[in-house]
């Protein structure tokens, strides 16, 4: 998917300008990702190379299962995928490695694609559009906000950051450095102050300064911390109260290295703050991030963005086909 297709509510001219830029940028990005992936000691392609020369038999299916487990897809979703793949293999009389790989990618991307493609877009059509970022500690919320602010500015939006992580030492400073880097407005609270009140100030500032997208950074919290989850609910309530219809997006930031606990995180965060999408970060490592398959399958939460590196432009719209292929064939995500 392309950037100009990733948002609901950006202007046509901005989209067109970006489309051209996209084409140029893509080739180099892809090369970089290939480099990264080739550095990984064993990619899944190697895994499949070894196994898929064989005929399609029982042990092969077991190995497909293992490959899925290895990608953190999880036992339940793996069983589902294999069952669908088996049906497809029988139906299409699949006998070769390539055919099976294609079918596998297809099954997985089908599982990742929301029925309504609109649901995968990030809604910034309201003014101001409010995006709340939530997640457990260390997944890359602050970094994602920095990169998204950069992208929004490219699209002629005027983002404003709200540093509502008043808990973690120097979290505000971290977001502040991103704000400087991408030349974006920021509203911040004092360390230890109530995050809900910082959010209140941030929304008021966005209105009075006429900013059109508000990006709210919250403190990382384990979903098992009852009082911290309540604090987050309060933040959401303040947003709802101040701007009817907001937050327009509540994005759960998830680390691609996360295992099966990711599903639980999504479940609990959804219950608390109505998560509208997932940002899957750190896909530039060797982790596959397969837990998002389970998350979309079980909870219907669409994956909206992926993080693929340290650079400002290393945040990308999520594309189910490309993701499925990258996860199970060792090709880069673009």
């Amino acid at each position: 998917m392309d950037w100009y297709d990733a948002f609901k509510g950006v202007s046509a001219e901005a989209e067109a300008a970006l489309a051209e830029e996209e084409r140029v940028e893509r080739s180099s990005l892809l090369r970089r990702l290939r480099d990264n992936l080739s550095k990984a000691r064993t990619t899944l392609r190697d895994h499949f190379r070894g196994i898929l020369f064989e005929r399609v038999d029982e042990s092969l299916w077991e190995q497909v299962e293992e490959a899925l487990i290895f990608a953190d897809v999880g036992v339940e979703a793996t069983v589902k995928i294999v069952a669908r793949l088996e049906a497809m293999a029988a139906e299409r009389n699949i006998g070769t490695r390539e055919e099976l790989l294609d079918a596998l990618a297809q099954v997985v991307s089908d599982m990742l694609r929301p029925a309504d493609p609109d649901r995968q877009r990030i809604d910034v059509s309201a003014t101001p559009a409010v995006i709340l970022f939530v997640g457990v500690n260390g997944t890359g919320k602050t970094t994602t906000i920095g990169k998204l602010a950069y992208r929004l500015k490219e699209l002629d939006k005027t983002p404003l950051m709200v540093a509502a992580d008043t808990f973690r030492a120097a979290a505000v400073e971290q977001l502040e450095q991103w704000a400087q880097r991408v030349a974006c407005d920021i509203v911040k609270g004092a360390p230890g102050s109530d995050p809900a009140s910082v959010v209140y100030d941030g929304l008021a500032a966005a209105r009075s300064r006429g900013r059109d997208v508000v990006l709210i950074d919250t403190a990382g919290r384990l979903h098992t911390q009852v009082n911290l989850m309540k604090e987050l609910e309060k933040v959401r309530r303040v947003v709802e109260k101040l701007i009817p219809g907001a937050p327009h997006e509540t994005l759960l930031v998830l680390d691609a290295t996360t295992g099966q606990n990711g599903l639980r995180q999504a479940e609990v965060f959804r219950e608390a703050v109505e998560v509208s999408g997932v940002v899957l970060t750190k896909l530039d490592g060797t982790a596959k991030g397969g837990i998002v398959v389970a998350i979309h399958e079980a909870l219907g939460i669409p994956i909206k963005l992926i993080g693929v590196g340290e650079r400002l432009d290393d945040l990308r719209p999520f594309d189910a086909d490309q993701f499925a292929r990258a996860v199970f064939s060792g090709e880069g995500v673009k």
Partner: protein
Amino acid sequence: MFESLTERLQEALGELRGHGKLSESDIDKAMREIRLALLEADVNFKVVRDFVAHVKERALGQEVIQSLTPAQQVVKIVNEELTALMGAGDSKLAFGSRPPTVILMVGLQGSGKTTACAKLANWLKKDGKRPVLIAADVYRPAAIDQLVTLAERVAVPVFAPGADVDPVEIAKRGIEFAREKGDVAIIDTAGRLHIDEDLMEELARIRAAVKPHNILLVVDAMTGQDAVNAAQEFRARVDIDGVVLTKLDGDARGGAALSVRAVTGKPIKFVSTGEKLGEFDSFHPDRMASRILGMGDILSLIERAQEQIDEQQAAAMEEKLRRAEFTFEDFLVQMKQVRKMGSLSSILGMLPGIPGAKQLKGVQLDDKQLDRVEAIVFSMTREERRHPEIIDGSRRQRIARGSGSTVQDVNNLLKQFREMQKLLRSMAGGKMPRFLPRGFGM
């Protein structure tokens, strides 16, 4: 779907319990459950394969078949194998013959290195050492500020020359700084991907420059299958000595701990279990295995309690409890001691039978609730705390106003308190529990 590893194993082994002797198909059935449970717990699938094969081999042996209680034998084998996989005995830090002892903290982005550095410093300080923190993460925005802030909180010296200095240089000069200011140097490095050639090379250069006594890999307990890739690569490039497992206060089953231990052969040395700086402990593989099998981490709890509760005070309290003379004043003292042990949820997590959040759904683990209870007690006069029976309607109103709560809150607390006293009276003469009865004030 979210049954804990404990439950799954209990389920698998519970079925075995019904039989007198084990058939091979019984064992196969149990092993399949164990395999699934471990995979769902994020244990790497190769590690799972080896583990299950090993357990099966032992279970099929004569010792089980001819044993009088085969089910118990299987539980024992799984427990032993789990313990063996995570390394036997306690894992300690290596200390240099001449100070400063150097500890290099490495890991992926967001695993919790900076926080772990501060917590380790705090832990070492309590142990009588004089730790010094060194800020060598020059890449992540404000990482240095974060370490400096945490150092202040722990009250240890910090060496932070800034983000425009080469990390190798920072580490080298940091050791000099540590030699003057303390006896242990903890170096915080930038998070890096194990496939990032340049940054891994930089880490190798830091290692060569400061020759650390300990290189600790910080691993997020929620990590999935990829934990083995990162761990293997960090071990290959900088030869780690051990692992710090973080974010263990969540409900992740922590299979990464097993995986990392199995593929690197390096021990897990510490676990980090909460938002508070004191929530950091040395790792006990035997206890972890017991915990996985549902016996609870009662040993850790007892140790922490012993460290933080004044023994004499506890004895006096027990005496009072025994004679059912427990008043609100005693209650305040008791509450203060429980708090010293960390957050309520981390304490409850260590108790047997409460392995995960699932069982705790009805129980509010809200530390703020404790604040409210405390506020109510603080609003009582000394006389009222000693003789709660004199608290009448107008006193209740005053207490409610004073503590910013409602009369109903005060009533609830008084009611619970009376029930507890009743309970104590009925138990008088018996051995008293050291901790607040569950449900009290919650």
